């Protein structure tokens, strides 16, 4: 009954989406206020209905209602509750409902907090948002309906892939979707503005918080996925340039560029046309990502051609929305030209450099990901484009960006002073240089890129700190004034400095683990020891154990350093019953210097087990850095100036003037 109600709610949501798409749009055309107002209740009820459908689906998973095909295919009664719930979005159909739910949520948020938007703009934004919803709801109902019943109901479900039964992966999809579905709002705003034929600084101010929120979610989502891969795949890789990863990385790169160009547009009224284009492209890349992951095209072009229903549908959605928006753009953009003048060396100039390098890097990832598919489809020739290609092309584009990054916030708008900026960054430059030299001197092995990368990381951290200290004029004015400047500094300034600092921290982690990882592969018998990076790992033996839906063999390892026992690690090998799969759980001792990482493998006979031990220097910093970036985003979002629906603040405006230069 609840399942039918959910099914019905989903179809009703589809009907509401039609209303949300057509009525406000028509209202905006003919200038009828009542029709435009329809957008608000439509967005709310759309969200409520999709939410109801989603909860109904979760309910079916929680009570293990195997008369629902989707539950039967993807769940099992013996699974722990949390994985029954996360199993809802751990499959194609459920994850598409989550996709639409988040889309509807963002629509409802605009309806709720967008009261200060001009009515026509809001009506058009919600109408475009409704159209995206409509397309995906039709997709779900027509090709991926999660509520289809099964008769007779099987006694037990097939189970969720055990590799997905993991806390980080339970929350990875919601964050990821909140990120790239969140970019839909930037898209809707862009299209609405193009329909209206005008864009101004206020538009950028409305778009930026939504983009920032989506970007922060996406950052956390990507970090969670990478962290999961690190401990689940058994050898500590954290990024593989896999097409599925690239699918989420491309919107991240484009979204990062969008955030920055929107600043220029908001503050200086320039780069309008470009910002609108980026807003369209960013969401288009989210659609590309959805297409890549959901269509099966990645498995092989051939498999896609055999069962193309879903893939062709998403491809059509992608082409209609991207093509439509770009056509509208080509038609309307020439009318938008306007902007401020600026010199190449200026805040604007630095943000343009940022955009150039980020979009080029994004383009490289895009081409590298799709090239093999396109080549095979066109000529039938099969090639592989993997990590070596991406490292060779992505790094040369991103390293100059990292080098230039600290300069940006130090330059003034319109015309900057490079020498003065460098003077304020001198301390950071000196420290980074010394760090690079120290690494070079102490490094016995490892690539030549390592000292440069390490110095870049320090440079970014130092640059971010210098940005704050120079904004509050530390050591230039009395301490009391410094503190008052610090307190009055807008949160957006802290946010951006923190996000830049996070990049530096992540760079240190990436360099550390890529350049200096140590590996030992050995066949160990109980009682034997191996040494790794100053740690002694002694293998004590294995014990069998049993979990709710798996059996496992747990290895016991004592980790000691200088004769002192630091920890006992318990890596294990699990065999899940449904579906029958083996996974490995690694044992990790996390320290600031790096992780001691042990995975246990097969029984090699005569009591020996295959053991893989690693030392991953600084690896934690990758995810800590990502979290700092996301936190920087959230902090910026808390800035009064950006807060959506914040009360008007003309009273306090003058007080801010001196503290902000950007």
């Amino acid at each position, binding site marked *: 009954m609840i399942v039918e109600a959910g099914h019905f709610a989903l179809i009703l949501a589809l009907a509401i989406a039609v209303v949300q798409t057509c009525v406000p749009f028509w209202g905006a055309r003919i200038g009828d206020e009542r029709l435009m107002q329809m957008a608000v209740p439509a967005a709310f009820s759309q969200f409520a209905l999709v939410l109801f459908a989603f909860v109904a689906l979760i309910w079916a998973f929680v009570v293990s209602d195997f008369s629902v095909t989707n539950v039967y295919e993807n769940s099992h009664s013996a699974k722990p509750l949390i994985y029954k719930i996360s199993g809802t979005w751990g499959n194609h159909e459920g994850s598409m409902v989550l996709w639409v739910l988040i889309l509807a949520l963002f629509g409802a948020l605009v309806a709720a907090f967008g009261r200060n938007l001009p009515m026509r703009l809001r009506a058009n934004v919600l109408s475009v948002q409704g159209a995206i919803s409509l397309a995906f709801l039709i997709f779900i109902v027509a090709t991926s309906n999660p509520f289809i019943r099964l008769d007779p109901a099987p006694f037990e479900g097939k189970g969720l892939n055990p590799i997905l039964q993991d806390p980080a992966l339970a929350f990875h999809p919601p964050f990821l979707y909140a990120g790239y579905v969140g970019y839909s709002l930037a898209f809707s705003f862009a299209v609405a503005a193009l329909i209206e034929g005008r864009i101004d*600084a206020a538009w950028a*101010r409305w778009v930026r918080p939504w983009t920032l929120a989506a970007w922060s979610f996406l950052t956390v989502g990507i970090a969670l996925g990478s962290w999961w891969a690190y401990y689940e*795949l058994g050898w500590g890789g954290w990024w593989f340039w896999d097409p599925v990863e690239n699918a989420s990385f491309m919107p991240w790169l484009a979204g990062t560029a969008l955030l920055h160009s929107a600043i220029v547009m908001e503050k200086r009224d320039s780069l309008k046309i470009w910002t609108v284009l980026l807003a369209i492209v960013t969401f288009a890349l989210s659609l590309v990502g959805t297409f890549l992951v959901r269509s099966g095209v990645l498995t092989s072009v051939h498999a896609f051609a055999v069962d193309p229903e879903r893939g062709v549908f998403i491809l059509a959605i992608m082409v209609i929305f991207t093509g439509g928006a770009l056509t509208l753009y080509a038609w309307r953009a020439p009318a938008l030209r306007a902007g401020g003048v600026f010199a190449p060396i200026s805040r604007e100039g630095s943000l343009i450099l940022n955009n150039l390098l980020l979009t080029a890097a994004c383009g*490289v990832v895009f081409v590298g990901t799709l090239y093999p598919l396109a080549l095979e489809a066109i000529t039938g020739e099969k090639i*592989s*484009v993997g990590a070596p290609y991406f490292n060779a092309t992505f790094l040369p584009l991103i390293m100059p960006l990292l080098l230039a990054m600290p300069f940006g916030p130090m330059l003034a708008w319109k015309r900057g002073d490079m020498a003065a900026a460098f003077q304020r960054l001198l301390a950071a430059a000196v420290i980074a240089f010394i760090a690079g030299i120290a690494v070079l001197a102490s490094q016995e092995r490892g690539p030549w890129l390592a000292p440069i990368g390490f110095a870049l990381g320090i440079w970014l951290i130092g640059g971010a700190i210098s940005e704050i200290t120079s904004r509050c004029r530390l050591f230039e004015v009395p301490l009391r004034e410094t503190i008052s400047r610090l307190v009055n500094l807008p949160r957006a300034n802290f946010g951006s400095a923190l996000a830049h600092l996070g990049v530096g921290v992540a760079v240190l982690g990436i360099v550390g683990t890529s350049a200096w990882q140590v590996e030992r592969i050995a066949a160990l018998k109980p009682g034997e020891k191996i040494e790794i990076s100053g740690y002694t790992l002694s293998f004590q033996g294995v014990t069998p154990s049993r979990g709710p839906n798996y059996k496992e063999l747990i290895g016991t390892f004592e980790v000691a350093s200088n004769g002192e026992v630091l920890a006992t690690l318990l890596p294990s090998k699990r065999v899940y019953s449904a579906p029958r799969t083996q996974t490995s759980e690694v044992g990790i001792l996390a320290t600031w210097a790096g992780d001691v990482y042990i995975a246990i493998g097969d029984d090699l006979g005569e009591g020996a087990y295959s053991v893989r031990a690693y030392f991953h220097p600084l690896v934690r910093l990758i995810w800590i850095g990502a979290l700092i970036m996301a936190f920087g985003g959230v902090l910026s979002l808390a800035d009064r100036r950006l807060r959506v629906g914040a009360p008007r603040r003309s009273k306090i405006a003058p007080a801010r003037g001196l503290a902000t230069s950007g």
Partner: protein
Amino acid sequence: MTRWWTIAFVCVALSSSMARAVQPNEVLADPALEQRARSISAGLRCLVCQNQSIDDSDAPLARDLRVLVRERLKSGDSDAEAVKFIVARYGEFVLLSPPFSFSTALLWFTPALLLLFGIYFIYRSSRIPMTTVKTSDALSEDEQEQLKKIVGT
């Protein structure tokens, strides 16, 4: 969702035993030779997995390739010769970094083309007079007032 689903699933499903890539009995006694074998393996694709190198893969075929690379090195092949040996048998598909050829030229020129195009685009836009064009899309006084209130300056 689940960006890892496919790679993880395919390789988990394929590996009859959950062995983790390079096994203790594969490792060569000579560390220098082993190091060379590892760096070659990192550039070779596991043919039955998605986008995994044979160095990371658990699939039996990947193991065969790893052993083959090591055998070639032991018999005195240079790195290039060992790779050539594998490519001769499995095709260029096995290389994770595709060699430059007519069909991959566009792929390899991509970064440079994107940069040049971007720079040209910026150069061209900067030539257009950037003064504010007062056209019909300019704000009316009323709207200016409204904007000021919203923006708060």
